């Protein structure tokens, strides 16, 4: 039974990857089409109001408002939803196959993290139209799933005593959720940097940018997404310390994984400060958001695989 469920899970994951691939291609085509249809003097989707002398606040602007309807994008989004449902089913099947939460080793972590990242991406569409991040998100999910299933796959195994704790469910899940918000924030910050560069130097070859919100809007969106990620990460840090106290007898011991969780937290605290520091708004704080997310990825890949420590849960 376990084996059938696990195989079914893999089938679902591979199918989801197929669907994501098509969605990714369509999102990219959408960019191409936007570039083709963008006018030299395109719609500036933003307006920034100087209020109170120094507070830059953003006017509420529907960032997609006036632009033409992009058929590719709509199809791509629909496919992303389909892919996500299949992907989600794959994650559930893996969980049922082993009888506990599917995020106890790197393979399962890849599956679940990418599912949550795509899920958060889809969910925020209700709040803001961020479809222009579709290529970034589906591409990211594809790479994560591909590397996860090809390089990190492990058979279903019983949960070792060290992980038999409710904190596995809470701590790791919140960490993944935080990662999803950081991922979105980094995507927005990358777009923001591209926009700022285009505005400054009229960078050629990126004409689709003209159809996207301006750098200030992107920056504000990135900030709001990252702040949510930061709260989740703070919770992860505290929950991890509580668990470490239960399992290892000390709440903090500068284990490599703890060190990197701390580094990431500090970088994002820096990001939030940068946003409030004169001279650090704009591209500088965007770089911090990207560096922070790079540290998250580093923590998940290089630290898990190559650094020695108590968190030896890669399962490999």
């Amino acid at each position: 039974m376990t084996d059938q469920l696990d195989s079914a899970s893999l089938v679902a994951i591979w199918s989801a990857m197929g669907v994501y691939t098509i969605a990714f291609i369509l999102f990219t085509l959408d960019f191409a089409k936007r570039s083709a249809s963008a006018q030299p003097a395109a719609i500036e989707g933003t307006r920034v109001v100087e209020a109170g002398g120094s507070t830059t606040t953003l006017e509420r602007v529907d960032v997609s408002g006036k632009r033409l309807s992009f058929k590719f994008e709509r199809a791509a989004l629909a496919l992303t939803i389909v892919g996500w449902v299949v992907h989600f089913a794959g994650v559930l099947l893996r969980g049922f196959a082993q009888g506990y939460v599917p995020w106890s080793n790197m393979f399962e972590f890849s599956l679940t993290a990418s599912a949550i990242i795509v899920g958060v991406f889809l969910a925020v569409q209700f709040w803001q139209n961020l479809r222009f991040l579709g290529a970034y998100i589906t591409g990211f999910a594809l790479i994560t799933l591909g590397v996860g299933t090809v390089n990190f796959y492990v058979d279903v195994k019983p949960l070792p005593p060290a992980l038999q704790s409710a904190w596995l469910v809470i701590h790791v899940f919140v960490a993944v959720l935080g990662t999803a918000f950081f991922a979105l924030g980094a995507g927005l910050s990358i777009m923001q940097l591209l926009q700022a560069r285009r505005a400054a130097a009229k960078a050629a070859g990126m004409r689709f940018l003209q159809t996207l919100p301006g750098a200030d809007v992107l920056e504000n969106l990135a900030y709001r997404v990252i702040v949510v990620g930061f709260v989740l990460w703070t919770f992860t840090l505290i929950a991890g310390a509580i668990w470490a106290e239960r399992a290892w007898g000390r709440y903090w011991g500068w284990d490599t994984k703890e060190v990197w969780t701390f580094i990431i937290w500090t970088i994002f605290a820096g990001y939030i400060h940068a946003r409030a520091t004169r001279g650090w708004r704009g591209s500088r704080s965007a770089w911090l958001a990207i560096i922070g997310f790079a540290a998250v990825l580093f923590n998940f890949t290089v630290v898990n695989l190559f650094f020695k420590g108590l968190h030896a849960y890669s399962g490999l």
Partner: protein
Amino acid sequence: MSRPSDHIDAPAPKRNPDAAITQPALGASGYARFFWRQLTSMRTALFLLLLLAIAAVPGSLVPQRSSDPNGVLQYFTDNPELAPLLDSVQAFDVYGSVWFSSIYLLLFVSLIGCVIPRTLHHLKALRGSPPKTPARLERLEGFTAVVAPGATAPAAIASARGILKKAGYRTRLYTGNGGDLSVSAERGYLRETGNLVFHTALVGVLLSVGIGGSFGYSGQKVIVEGDTFSNVLLSYESFLPGRFFSDDVLQPYRLSLDEFDATYEQQNPSAYGQPIDYTASVTAYPPGADAGTRSEIKVNEPLRVGGNEIYLLGNGYAPIITVRDGDGNVAFNDAVPFLPQDGNLTSLGVVKVPDAVPEQIGMIGFLYPTQTTLASGALTSNYPDLLNPVLSLQVFTGDLGLDAGIPRSVYSLDTDGMTEVAGRNAEVPSIQLTPGETVELPGGIGTVTFENADPEAAAGDLANSVPRFASLDIHRDPSQGWVLVFALLVLAGLLTSLFIPRRRVWVKALETAAGGIRLEYAGLARGEDPGLERAVRDIADRHSGQLGAHSADPATRA
């Protein structure tokens, strides 16, 4: 708001092109003030935060004495040239190093210097009332103007005040220079409170970690099934006291390990032999009590006894070994903890028999719980439980070096100055024993017995033939409750400060020549506030709806 001068919301710095020339020479106090202002600026806080992140990196690249002392020793062996160099810059003690400490101490000085004036300022603001309405609202956020033909200014402002109050605003009425009436409203003081609680609680975390660490202690104890541990300093294998530790905090309780159970996977072929559960069944005798309380310790379930928390960190086998010397006297009889070397619990241990006559005997042993033979002929274990236990011993005679006064680890044998009499480099191969078996040592120096701890078991059932040991970590940290409290305050402060908007809203009423009034609405964000515009418009809609007002913009008038 008394923010640092380079805060994004602070007034723009005065630009004075001649500043460099006209600035008067700074006296000592001027320099001090200048330095203090630099230290408590946003830019410094940002710089120190990022520096702290960078400074934390090396500690994850190089093993640390605090978390991985053996890794440090190994590093010295592997990199004999580099290691002392790294050691001289405290690279193996990064998180207690002078440079790491100075960064975070500076950061916290800056933090305190930043938080105190803000707290004072905020306390004053909490008691004060919203500031005077600006003369011109047009340039502010969400500016809306309507005309209400039949309304009077005092009534309109009173109803606006009611709406604002209900929405949680603090309000005050003002009369402008032109006689115009207005209500000035502010809400979200909790945002600043949260921010201050957040930063102050960080200091709390730092202090309770620092203070708690110096009163607590942690120790390790290896305890074999059937043995009892007494909580006195001497019984610990290793002990790490905090700076202000004193003996009298050790409460004299006792703890026996009645039984240790390990369960291993037997069904799933891809996880065969993987541990599923470890349970240490113990009896704790509180100080002065004769009757014990039975309980269990598991990996994620520590036991709290006598002011301590007791954690199950490891386990293994402790074969009972008896050595009789050349005269036939029992020179050694004990359960010897063997350290696991792999997942199938191939375990390594050392036996030292200083009292053997005519010569001291030392042995290095491997225990294979389920012994099989590799193609190379080497022995190994292929399952962690006791299906086919075999003990293999290398035997040495000569000076054990115990009299030199140098402390020796019980887990290692210094074979310099000893002669190998059985083993790879001797004429006689290693001695191999199964539970209950006794073998003569070469050269008539005695015999060795691998005792069966459960001789009554049915023939072939060796499941309990070797006792197990549990390695326990025993801690006391009087401040960890405080650390948790402050950590939760950090989280609570963060939530309020990031998600509660702080904003000011103004409603102004001007009498018009035509007899009615013109109403103006506008808001101002205090910090990040993406919802401000909508909030102002909501208030404007609700209020002008009540008054039956319509837009003041002729172009949109219906």
